């Protein structure tokens, strides 16, 4: 218990201890390095990409579907990873797409986590009507297909990254709520919570300082998975024509668009973005795994 509290209050030395613990695993360090490279590449995309793939005036349809290493028709560009169906440089598209995918995946997951976790904690701890209400809302949400949510948002508000994030949050918060509530139900009946209650600690304090840290480990596993799932779901929605604008493709949309060419041997349009997506997700999970091990109060107590 005390160790968990220490890890979660980055007071004097908390961060440093965390960093030291993290550095114990070389694999996790490699994952962190990879993640940092990816995030840096994504952030620096406008400066390092050979082309602005979102600017249609920079594309030339005559350069479409060129294999990796081809030069553009006017000789001004060299397409290291080939081009897509519009003549978009794949390398630039991947760098920009990474930006969108990572941003969409993280923001959707964090928002959904914050929303779902709070509702789940409160529901699990309070029980009774509130619990019933939240859980039935969860039932509704979990059976409401993301495709329908996305389509309604598209019809009402048009295309856009923000709408996709909303659709993803709407379809994922319930997951965290359910998982948190399950953990909170169990943890909430343990002795230390009873003790905290007897001590007269305020409810928010019990919830967020005592209950939350102990509910967190399964949530971190789920959340790390869900960033990947959010990115994949975004790709699926884009695949179904309900996602991002076609002129501003994310990695998922690039894979979806490129897939139709795979049968005909023009692999570069979906394989390269696929590899980029895979690397990003693997790096993310390596980091998340390590953090989970460090932050887990139960693993800490040894």
């Amino acid at each position, binding site marked *: 218990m005390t160790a968990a509290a220490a890890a979660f209050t980055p007071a004097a030395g908390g961060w440093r201890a965390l960093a030291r613990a993290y550095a114990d695993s070389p694999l996790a360090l490699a994952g962190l390095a990879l993640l940092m490279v990816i995030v840096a590449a994504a952030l620096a995309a406008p400066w390092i990409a050979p082309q602005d793939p979102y600017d*249609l*005036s920079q*594309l*030339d*349809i*005559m350069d*479409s*579907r060129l294999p990796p290493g081809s030069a553009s028709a006017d000789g001004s560009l060299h397409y290291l990873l080939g081009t897509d*169906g*519009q*003549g978009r440089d794949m390398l630039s598209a991947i760098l920009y797409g990474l930006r969108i995918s990572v941003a969409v995946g993280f923001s959707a997951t964090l928002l959904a986590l914050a929303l779902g976790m709070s509702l789940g904690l409160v529901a699990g701890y309070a029980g009774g009507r509130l619990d019933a209400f939240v859980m039935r809302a969860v039932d509704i949400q979990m059976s409401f297909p993301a495709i329908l949510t996305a*389509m309604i948002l*598209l*019809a009402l508000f*048009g*295309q856009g990254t923000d709408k996709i994030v909303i659709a993803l949050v709407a379809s994922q918060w319930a997951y965290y709520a359910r998982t948190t509530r399950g953990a909170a139900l169990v943890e909430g009946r343990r002795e230390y919570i009873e003790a905290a209650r007897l001590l007269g600690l305020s409810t928010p304090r019990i919830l967020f300082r005592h209950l939350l840290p102990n509910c967190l480990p399964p949530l971190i596993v789920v959340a790390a998975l869900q960033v990947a799932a959010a990115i994949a779901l975004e790709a699926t929605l884009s695949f*179904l*024509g*309900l996602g991002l*604008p*076609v*002129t501003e493709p994310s990695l998922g949309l690039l894979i979806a668009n490129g*897939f*139709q*060419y*795979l*049968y*005909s*041997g*023009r*692999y570069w349009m979906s394989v390269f973005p696929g590899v980029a997506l895979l690397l990003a997700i693997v790096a993310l999970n390596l980091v998340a795994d390590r953090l989970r091990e460090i932050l887990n109060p139960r693993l800490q107590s040894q």
Partner: protein
Amino acid sequence: MPQHASPSRRPSLLARLLFGAAMAGALLPAWAADLRIGLSSDVTSLDPHFVNIAPNIAFSDHVFDTLVKSDASGKLVPGLAESWRALSPTTWEFKLRQGVVFSDGTPLTAEDVVFSLDRPATIKNSPGPFTSYTKQIVRKEAIDAHTVHLHTASAYGPLPLDLISIYVVSKKAAENAGTEDFNSGKALIGTGPFKFAAFRKGESIEITRNERYWGAKPEWDKVVFRILASDAPRLSALLAGDVDVIENVPAADLARLKTNPQVTLAQHTTWRTLFWQLDQFRDQSPFVTGKDGKPLDKNPLKDLRVRQAISKAINRQALVERTLEGLAEPASNINAPGIFGYNAQIPVEAYDPEGAKKLLAEAGYPDGFSLTIHGTNNRYINDDQVVQTVAQFLNRIGIRTRVDTQPVATYFGKARAHEYSFALLGWGSLATDFTLRSIVGTIDPDTGWGSWNWGKYSNPKVDELVAGALAAVEPAERERLAREAASVALGDLAVIPSHHQLATWGLRKGFAYDGRIDEFTFAHEIRSAR
């Protein structure tokens, strides 16, 4: 053995793919007289009068006949009616073929025809009824067992064309029958080349040869249609030998399929013509702004010179070859070549970006303006790619263009509510006067004119010519008027034509098909080939 000449040591992905397909095919027994077809969209009901959507019509044609038929190139040919003529501008006589019997053995009579023409109006819960094709007929007369007179309220030339959509059912079997009775096969009694065998909704339909068919009997004892709506499984079903014929071969795979010895391709130019509809009624169009994002004081799309500039900016040849991978032809008309009323005198606009810039400058937009163009992403061949490519072209002449593509479910409603400034539509029709009436006719909800005129183009001259064509019962006169109407409307660039789609069928070796302009896949027109 594929690709042995290739310098690479490892066989390419495709080589392995083709080899696998060849092996899978070799393992299958030869089904001499069975035909398996992979369809790209679902047949929702077997009732031929329930809902007017292409997959249902395509199925109906196997089991039922119409009075008038259209051949593979869209020409009207005799069906159950041997001949027809206009006795007066408002009265048509149809002579029925002798000796035609339904698959249950009852002979076809004029009674069945009259019943079939009455039936669409009795189906109340259809979202897309066939009544559009029967409502011109105010009175039907069975003169004798093989003569029918149809009376229209006013002179109406396209009546025979309308009748290619009304399938003739057996009065005996279909009287009091509901949609369910058709789906179960009970009421599904027709005069067509096949008869019903089994229907597994959303999955497959089976039919067998109708030995009583009046025309040339099809080669196939049994035909199985499988619903394979997604592209990849449909193609892989063909490659793996699970089906013999597929429709709508994905554009991306054409080039490689051509080199596959196990597969032949059939192609046909289709009636589906794609064009851009431009806002020509608002002074401030919602998706047009200055380059600074501020509204313009007038709507540039209303200026003919701007429309001409846009048409010149579109490199149709590049669009067709690159974006559509050869699955289309550049268009100058609003209908495909060979369609009634097609005007061959109108040339395809040449790609001329310099001329386009000059016209823009003349119109007062030397620096262009900003525009968002709209299109579908699940309706036409590579549609979202087409929209992007046209945006590229427009950017090149200084019109800063953004793209918004959507599924049809959300798109059509908005487009029909005139919400867009510049939007893509594909249209398939067997007559130019019909198309013009719906697309560029002045909007009038009471008559149904201009029902798909998204840009609200309006020209009394065009309306007059189209009305004249529709009222002409003499085909030559009707076609002349339709051509003239098309040339006036396209001279105004009422819409900007883009391209005519080609349809592609993939067939396993040993099967042959000529394709059809109406995109339908007809088992009775598929042959075995050596």
